[in-house]
């Protein structure tokens, strides 16, 4: 026993100092072994590209990973914790994350904010505090950005239903609007935003300063009997939203101060089979999943995850993808999947790629033209998938 701790420590250090001295001398003698020590650094990244997709880790993995759909390679990661919502600046300069953080993990003080990341460094730029937001996973339309990129709309429910409106240029909260009975937001350029409501209507909130003037369309869908999936798709160029219901009805809505909704058509009828029904015991093909549909804006092609089952199976993963020509009201192709998929998105490129994942958190990249799997990426994430949208 001896009080040797510092001595031992110092001796070890001397040994290592000697070793490195030996190393420094040895290097010039053997040119092959002479290596320059490498420097550590941090890379930057391009602004978001149309061939990229962003996959949320879902419940189990924090972070939204950025992949290139062509190469299948990971490019970086945006910090999204469980139940955070990410949105891409239409100008491509920022990634925005609406998130809720407690000061002591699961306890302490609640902090709701939109966190801003630079899209080239992926560094945190700032945080924009706001009064609250709903905690729910896998929703695309709880945090949306206006077409001009200037305004963010974040759905709140505490548990009163409302929307926080954030000035993304000035980086501050503008106002919080009450919006009873409605949720699932879509931009409404020049007006404010619109939303789906429990009475089967679209609400439109015209923003004047810090006030919102709420109007409703006539009810057009059965919110409890045949709901519209709240992960619908909005097209910035056409200013049009495409909706899909549990039974397989497809609607489009022209978004304006007074939105107009098309007559729906049945995806099953569009494929030449029996129309989907809300009755029990009727086994048919139904849409399903968490993010059950993806819209290719330029061509108006809708890709829908479909499964065989009974009604109220709307969360079931899809065994097929049905490609719907929305204008022609025709299913033009049915892709049979190797394994059931829960989320689907499509690149807004000339040669569209389908991005899909399921419970395993594995992303499958499929070429729409050939139906072939381009990439299968393990542990990419099991949450929703986002792409850069044309604007």
């Amino acid at each position, binding site marked *: 026993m001896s009080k040797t701790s510092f001595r031992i420590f110092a001796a070890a250090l001397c040994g290592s100092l000697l070793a490195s001295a030996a190393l420094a001398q040895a290097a010039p003698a053997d040119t092959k072994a002479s290596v320059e020590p490498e420097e550590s650094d941090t890379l930057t990244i391009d602004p978001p590209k149309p061939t990229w997709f962003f996959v949320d880790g879902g419940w189990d993995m924090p972070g939204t990973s950025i992949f290139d759909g062509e190469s299948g390679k990971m490019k970086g990661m945006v910090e999204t914790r469980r139940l955070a919502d990410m949105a891409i600046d239409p100008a491509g300069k920022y990634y925005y994350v609406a998130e809720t953080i407690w000061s002591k993990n*699961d306890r302490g003080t609640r902090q709701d904010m939109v966190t801003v990341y630079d899209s080239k460094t992926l560094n945190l730029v700032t945080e924009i505090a706001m009064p609250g937001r709903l905690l729910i996973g896998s*929703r695309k339309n709880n945090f949306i950005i206006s077409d001009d990129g200037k305004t963010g709309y974040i759905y709140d429910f505490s548990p009163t239903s409302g929307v926080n409106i954030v000035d993304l240029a000035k980086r501050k909260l503008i106002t919080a609007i009450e919006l009873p009975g409605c949720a699932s937001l879509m931009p409404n350029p020049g007006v404010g935003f619109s939303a789906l409501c429990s009475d089967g209507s679209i609400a439109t909130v015209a923003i004047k300063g810090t006030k919102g003037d709420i109007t409703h369309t006539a009810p057009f869908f059965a919110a409890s009997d045949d709901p519209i999936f709240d992960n619908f798709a909005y097209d910035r160029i056409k200013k049009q939203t495409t909706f899909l219901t549990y039974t397989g009805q497809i609607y489009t809505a022209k978004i304006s101060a007074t939105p107009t909704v098309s007559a729906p058509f049945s995806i099953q009828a569009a494929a030449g089979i029996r129309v989907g029904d809300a009755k*029990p015991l009727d086994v048919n093909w139904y849409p399903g999943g968490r993010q059950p549909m993806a819209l290719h804006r330029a061509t108006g092609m809708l890709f829908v995850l479909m499964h065989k089952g009974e009604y109220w199976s709307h969360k079931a993963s899809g065994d097929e993808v049905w490609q719907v020509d929305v204008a022609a009201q025709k299913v033009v192709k049915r892709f049979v999947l190797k394994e059931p998929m829960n989320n689907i998105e499509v690149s807004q490129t000339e040669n569209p790629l389908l991005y899909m994942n399921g419970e395993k958190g594995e992303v499958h990249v499929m070429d729409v033209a050939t139906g072939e799997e381009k990439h299968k990426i393990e542990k990419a994430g099991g949450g929703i998938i986002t792409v850069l949208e044309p604007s």
Partner: protein
Amino acid sequence: MKKFNADSMGEKLLRKFAGASSRRSMLSRLGAALVAAPVFPLLPVSRAEAAKPDRSPETKTFFARTAQTKDDTKCDYWRYCAIDGALCTCCGGGIHSCPPGAEPSPVSWVGTCINPDDGKAYLIAYRDCCGKPACGQCGCDNTDRETQLYVPQLNNDVIWCFGTSSMDYHCSTAVLVGAAS
């Protein structure tokens, strides 16, 4: 247009479900109708009342046709027709009891489930237990009459932990509220 006042509507019942007075005052403060959802669910009851649906096997959902009443630690237990999450009965809790250290949310989403023993429909409040990390055991996701976010009290993806000291989701209970029709 007058705003709805939660305190004026069946305060006794509200208190009964809300439990402790601190929670009740939270409910009053919120003042919003959705708080009452577990007690007065909007659509399943009113529609059930209106339509007087046939509960014969032919019109039951797949879940209802295959549900059992013996084992509340299985996903096919009758009350779980619209549950999403870990069953508290597998996490050290009970069918209407939170596991130790977890706190029941005073608000919840609801389901209308059929008890195969009597063929009747009952209102079930799926009350989340909050304040502990996800339990991980007995994950279920049943979706009978489960809708989307704009009808939040019928959506089972929402983290139904409001008015609790922590919103960390631990597990879900299935509390019997009453007969639905």
